[in-house]
């Protein structure tokens, strides 16, 4: 049940095909406003894993063996170098970085989602204030620590948020909504930057 592996566009091998690979935010990013930067994350391999009944522990072990990351807890992620396993909803884990080990297919439904999401990174002083304009989620340090993941509303879109650093967040929405996400985030970046100039909030 393993699907054909699609090579990441960052590798030159894909350039040999007649098709030009276009990332979701092509022509939209990067963007800098004030102290804030919005960039598109490099197009990593993304694979959704849904463990078969009773195979969670075995999957966690297999993941750790093959990719160095255990299954994350609810709302959490695990990371080893460029490989991450993100909790992605009830009974779902998104493996980002490497192509999945074919052996995982015995333990989980393995589905390629490398092209399904626009993956952005928002970084800089005030990144939390930008997101406070886009999501109802509590993103305070105590509630949303480094590595935390949430499936949530981002500016009236269903998406995912990942705490990647003290002032850095990963944002994911479906690829088709990339332009709307960039529009909404940049609008909030402008607002936060203008407020900072007033010395306020």
């Amino acid at each position: 049940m393993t699907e054909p592996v699609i090579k990441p566009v960052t590798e030159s091998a894909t350039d040999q095909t007649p098709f030009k690979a276009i990332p979701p935010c092509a022509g939209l990013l990067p963007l800098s406003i004030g102290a804030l930067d919005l960039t598109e994350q490099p197009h990593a391999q993304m694979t959704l894993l849904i463990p078969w009944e009773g195979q969670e522990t075995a999957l966690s072990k297999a993941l750790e063996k093959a990719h160095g990351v255990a299954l994350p807890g609810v709302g959490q992620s695990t990371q080893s170098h460029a490989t991450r396993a993100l909790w992605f909803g009830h009974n779902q884990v998104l493996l980002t970085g490497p192509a999945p080990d074919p052996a995982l297919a015995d333990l989980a439904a393995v589905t390629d989602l490398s092209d399904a999401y626009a993956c952005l990174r928002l970084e800089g002083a005030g990144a939390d204030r930008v997101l406070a304009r886009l999501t109802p989620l509590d993103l305070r340090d105590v509630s949303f620590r480094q590595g935390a993941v949430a499936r949530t509303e981002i500016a009236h879109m269903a998406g995912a948020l990942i705490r990647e650093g003290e002032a850095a967040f990963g944002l994911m929405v479906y690829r088709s909504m990339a332009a709307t996400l960039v529009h909404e985030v940049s609008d909030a970046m402008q607002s936060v930057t203008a407020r900072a100039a007033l010395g306020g909030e």
Partner: protein
Amino acid sequence: MRLSKGGLIERAKPLTFTFDGHRYQGYAGDTLASALLANGQRVMGRSFKYHRPRGPLTAGPEEPNALVTLGHGPTQEPNLRATTLELFDGLAARSQNRWPSLDFDLLAANDLLAPFLGAGFYYKTFMWPRAFWEKLYEPAIRRAAGLGALSGQANETRYEKAFAHCDLLIIGAGPAGLMAALEAGRAGADVILADEDALMGGRLNSETLSIDDTPAHAWAAHTVAELASMPNVRLMPRTTITGAYDHGTYSAVERVSMHLAAPNDAPREAFWRINAERAILATGALERPIAFANNDRPGIMLASALRSYVNRYAVVPGRAVAIFGNNDDAHRTAADLLDKGVHIAALIDSRPDATCTLPVRFIPGAQVAHATGRKSLEAITIATQSGTDRLQCDVLAVSGGWNPTLHLTSHMGARPRWDAKTAAFLPAPDAIPGLIPAGAVTGRFSTHAALEAGLTAARDALSVLGLKHAQTDLPTAEDAPYAITPLWAVPASGMGKGRAWLDFANDVTVKDVKLASSEGYKSVEHMKRYTTQGMAPDQGKNSNIGALAILADATGRSIPETGTTTYRAPYAPTTLAAMGAGGQGKGFAPERLTTSHAATLKAGAPTVEAGLWHRPSYFPRPGETHWRQSCDREVAMVRSHVGITDVSTLGKIDIKGRDTGAFLDFVYTNMFSTLKPGRVRYGLMLREDGHVLDDGTTACLAPGHYVMTTTTAAAGPVMRHLEFVAQALRPDLDVALTSVTEQWAQFAIAGPRSTDLLNTLLDDAVTDEGFPFMACGPVAIKGTPARLFRISFSGERAYELAVPARYGAALFDLLKARAEAMQGGAYGMEALNVLRIEKGLLTHAELHGRTTAFDLGMQGMMSKKKDFIGKTASERPGLMAPDRERLIGLRPTGAVKQLLAGAHLFDRDAEATRMNDQGYITSACFSPTLGHAIALGFLVRGPDRIGEEIRMVDHLRGVETTCEVVAPQFFDPDGGRARD
């Protein structure tokens, strides 16, 4: 006039502003009201109904009179309270509800008509003729009565919405709020301190009090500075908490840049939703007026407001001040004024036993019965037990006691409790879970009591939050008792001529309330609606309690029996722009764009919305001036050559697992467990109630691995449905569902030459033998893995080709170019729709939620060999009755050759009335293939009436014709073109 020293204004920062075009000077720290009073301008508005000249009654957000308009055109903002509008350089305000000017208002003639314009006069006077109300009376009344107006133009100003989270939200930064914030902040709690004023401190900034032997305003400033230095405390000045909701959620409006001459990109206002573990309500209290004849004359204001103007803004709004009260705050006012050297004409205290040690003319046991003067107070008449006395004065400060600002405690249904000792309503206990009222809002009015309550409330909250107390010392402050004898309105017998005003903003008098009572509106809610008391922008903050007290008196009930009206959110007037922030323009809804979107726009194709998706309507070629020309050409192109279109918007659900076959059998009406790898099957899905949910194809890619296709519209609902089935109905089945809609860019290649086109691209060519109708399988295009499905939504030989979305744009360009080289090209939604109507294929126009498989002629797809969702319900009596409205085709037979979706069907000779309705049209188009209009619809006993002539009437568009009932498959009914 401005006092030469004192106040919290910044005298080093003079500001220039205009009011009704006149230039004035004020200082930073002024409000528009204080600056106008300093310049001797006391008339700031005209009243709602009678156009009486009015000046500020208050110095705060509850102001009913001094409402002004800022801005012009789209940014025009009416009904802003001059008493809270911070002065900035270049501020240009205009008065409202006057013509031609504030000083000379012709509509003030209404005031002379007052005997006819009392409560309920609209209802009594404009009864007849009935049709005149909407056309004549209402517009005329609206023009004569009203406040500021909007421009009617779209406002592009930036507003924003935001969320905040904290351990402790403190509402109000007066002594109680500041004390609570200090303790909680020092204890390390995550605190938000919100206050509607720009300058935190509340009454401390308006009184001449001391805290720990320093001036109270200095203590406030020092405390605010300490709080500002704490990283765990967020100060939110200019922020009004407007509502209390479930789970510790509070709404708030922040005036972000309204006080700035050059806001740049900063939003004008922000609408906040604040989520707090605990909250402290430290909103204080609002002073209330006393009703007497002409108590609305400019120059008459609340005693607390006068102290604010004198102490905070260093403004004395007149030369001779009289003071009238029923409690000790009147005395405090006199003391402050004496201290500033202001002449006090008299201090009138309604309490006969009151005493006074101040060197002023003191008149206990007396009442102000009447005021004279029109645009400015000139004199008052004082009623004592021995008679009346006239006194010259141009300012009268009134104190009728204090109403705790408890509105938020009523937002979840709790009713305030009457407290006779303070003659005030107090918050009900535990009115809002997690909200602790502290200070004056609980009826404890001394500074000491406020500080102590703030400290206690903070400690209560800290205990709940599991934090240690910070051991902040309680500062020393005055602890004067609150002594009050209720007085709501001076008795009418003593007043003489003139109306006694309760609701200044809506021109409601004591007499109006009594009239309502005598006419049977005895409930406070009825009185409110009959008189409009409390329905103006001040929401009755100045008048509610007075009006209900008078109603209680008029109906012979007590005040607690009478009760208050319901306080609802928002607590303060809130702009719709703030509440709807972010929803303008592109912010209205997300746009979902396909990978071919840029190429679509480049080709000049207009787009239509399908859900959130934007899809091409048609691809115009040079010379085509009407969409029908393009659409007809595209249909012909597909029927005779080849066309391509982006179908990525259709839902794609990846289904894996050992129990997938059983799962699909359970959700589809027909059998899927028998589907072989490499094959596709059309399926129908019912809701639990037996009606059709969606249709689509499901492909078996490998054993235990399927991809389901849903309609664009139902992609979300079907995914939700499947998840529900998997988690709740059939947890015994091990299946995994993943939405892969966005992973794959998918294109339909349709037409007799579709195989030829495909074989110019594929690494390994396909043949009819290897890839027959309803086959599927993996293919490769120059090494790129892809999926191919031989399915058709056009009735032609057709394929759908899917590639990872990153290659979608490139593949679309390639397919389009190849198709164009074969006399084909891209086609849009219009042609796609015509192609499927010609074939009688369904969309959600037909699967609209009220149709059954039987209605659609698909009862044959309901497997008898297995159970499936909706099976039993679909067998209920009536759901398969022959006289149901059932799917048919229609073609016009009359002189009018047009068929319209939405039109209704009738027997040929029947009248086109509701009772005779026989059905309706769901989809209609002109078929270029057949050369006439065609339609799909539902008709009573439809399939039994093939060949019958019926009548189509579109009542909305005024179109009528006759048409013939035909089978819903207009073109190639046996499907040979797609198959062979």
